[in-house]
């Protein structure tokens, strides 16, 4: 089967704990239904003990937009330069959350499935993969809310909205790479799981989720730093296509930034994760 490589005595093949990268990726792909079943189950289980049940998949995003609008739009007034601040918030929050939850979830994906790991042989990369996929499924509900909010707040539907789809695909790859990386890191240093939420809290404010960076930052050198931040780009690109009155600079550069980040994260994450394949789940 998939772990086996070179030819040897008795016509048997050598059993390897370190399959080649290609074999490894193929064995993950062969078990994609497993990843899918894990994610769907976890998503359904999330609100299963609530009275309102699955309705929370829509209510949570709505409440979130409401709270952020109240604090940052009405009370603190950081909505300078943004005409449709509610739409601006909606797009930013959910795109940001997709990465945050995928990566924070990835860091505990191994420890959450310790029982499965100790009982069955399967490529462990399935676990971070199903975490990211679960967050993708959650994003769908949030996306429906976002699109509704954006339309209700007066934006016209246009074909350029479709450009958001390839962006989500790129973000998925980026999240997966980062989740694989932190899954391995957190397996070696469990304390990381406690640290990550704070990292994302800081990144939240540095990625322009709540304010239009172009309005506050004029120095081109500092702006270049923002473009180097993939989360800033993921948050800003869809706003450009979905909000007509926003006129951001550097959008083409942002596409380049996210593509390079996604590719690098995926390759590094996969290599780093696989190098620990035989160590996951050991006490």
């Amino acid at each position, binding site marked *: *089967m998939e772990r*086996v490589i070179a030819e040897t*005595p008795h016509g*048997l093949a050598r059993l390897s*704990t370190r399959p080649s990268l290609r074999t490894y990726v193929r064995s993950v792909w062969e*078990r994609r239904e497993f990843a899918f079943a894990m994610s769907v189950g976890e998503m359904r289980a999330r609100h299963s003990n609530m009275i309102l049940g699955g309705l929370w998949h829509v209510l949570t995003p709505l409440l979130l937009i409401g709270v952020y609008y109240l604090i940052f739009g009405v009370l603190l007034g950081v909505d300078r330069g943004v005409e449709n601040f509610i739409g601006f918030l909606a797009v930013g929050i959910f795109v940001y959350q997709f990465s945050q939850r995928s990566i924070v979830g990835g860091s505990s994906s191994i420890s959450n499935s310790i*029982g499965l790991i100790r*009982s*069955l042989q399967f490529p462990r990369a399935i676990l971070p993969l199903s975490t990211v996929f679960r967050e993708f499924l959650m994003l769908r509900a949030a996306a429906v809310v976002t699109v509704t909010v954006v339309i209700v707040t007066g934006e016209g539907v246009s074909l350029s909205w479709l450009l958001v789809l390839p962006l989500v695909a790129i973000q998925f790859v980026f999240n997966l790479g980062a989740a694989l990386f932190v899954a391995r890191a957190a397996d070696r240093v469990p304390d990381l799981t406690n640290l990550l939420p704070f990292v994302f809290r800081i990144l939240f404010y540095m990625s322009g989720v709540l304010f239009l960076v172009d309005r506050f930052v004029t120095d081109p050198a500092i702006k270049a730093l923002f473009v180097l931040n993939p989360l800033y780009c993921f948050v800003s690109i869809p706003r450009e296509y979905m909000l007509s009155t926003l006129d951001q600079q550097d959008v083409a550069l942002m596409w380049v930034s996210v593509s390079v980040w996604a590719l690098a994260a995926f390759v590094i994450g996969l290599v780093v994760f696989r190098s620990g394949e035989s160590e996951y789940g050991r006490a």
Partner: protein
Amino acid sequence: MTTGARPATMVVDDVHVTYHVNEERRPGFRETLRQGFKRPVERSIDAVRGVSFTAYQGEAIGVIGGNGAGKSTLFQVMAGLLPPTEGTIYANSQPALLGVGAALQPKVSGRRNVELGCLALGLSRQELEERLPAIVHFAGLEEFIDLPLRTYSSGMRARLHFAIATAVEPEILLIDEALSVGDAAFKRRSRRRIDELRSKAGTVFLVSHSMRSIRKTCDRVIWMERGVVMVDGPTPEVLEAYRAYTEDPDDD
């Protein structure tokens, strides 16, 4: 010993496993401040020291020996879960390991565990749907299959796990004490399942401290102590040697 005429399913070639373990106790923060940071004491433990054997189609091989003999470690290596420090394993397919105390997913139902387990082992959705009733029936858990796994007794859990692992019909099955918690009826059923796998040219390995179940199930026994193979041969002879060894350790 074994008939060399049958094709081999697995070759274990001079396998060594050395664990490097840090001493367990971690100094507290205050202690570190007072005494400075010291590297934890590292100890190496030779769990398996040069084990070699060849397993053939249709064999049921018992592995016996005292606690700490290296049986479970050897199984981990044979399953491809633990890289050997030295030596190589050759096999005709990926072995399936059934360990003791395996937990699967305690919070979700037995049914869902069967689904996830089978998909994890590489069955397709369709194959899973076809085999699900048989798996549940084999485990004897029809009544309880929709209860969360954490409510199961250890015997019920072991039954479910065995049913999942054998549903994919592995050619090499490694059972580490996993049957010892099952009741008599399940032991009979699992023995039948083991015979089935053997008749389909599979090989079954069984670690057990019950000489009765070794005698009933296995035609060959490997006896290990302190990481090395003491005797490897037909069941009655090895069990006799083992009995002589354990019965009279010292004269007091």
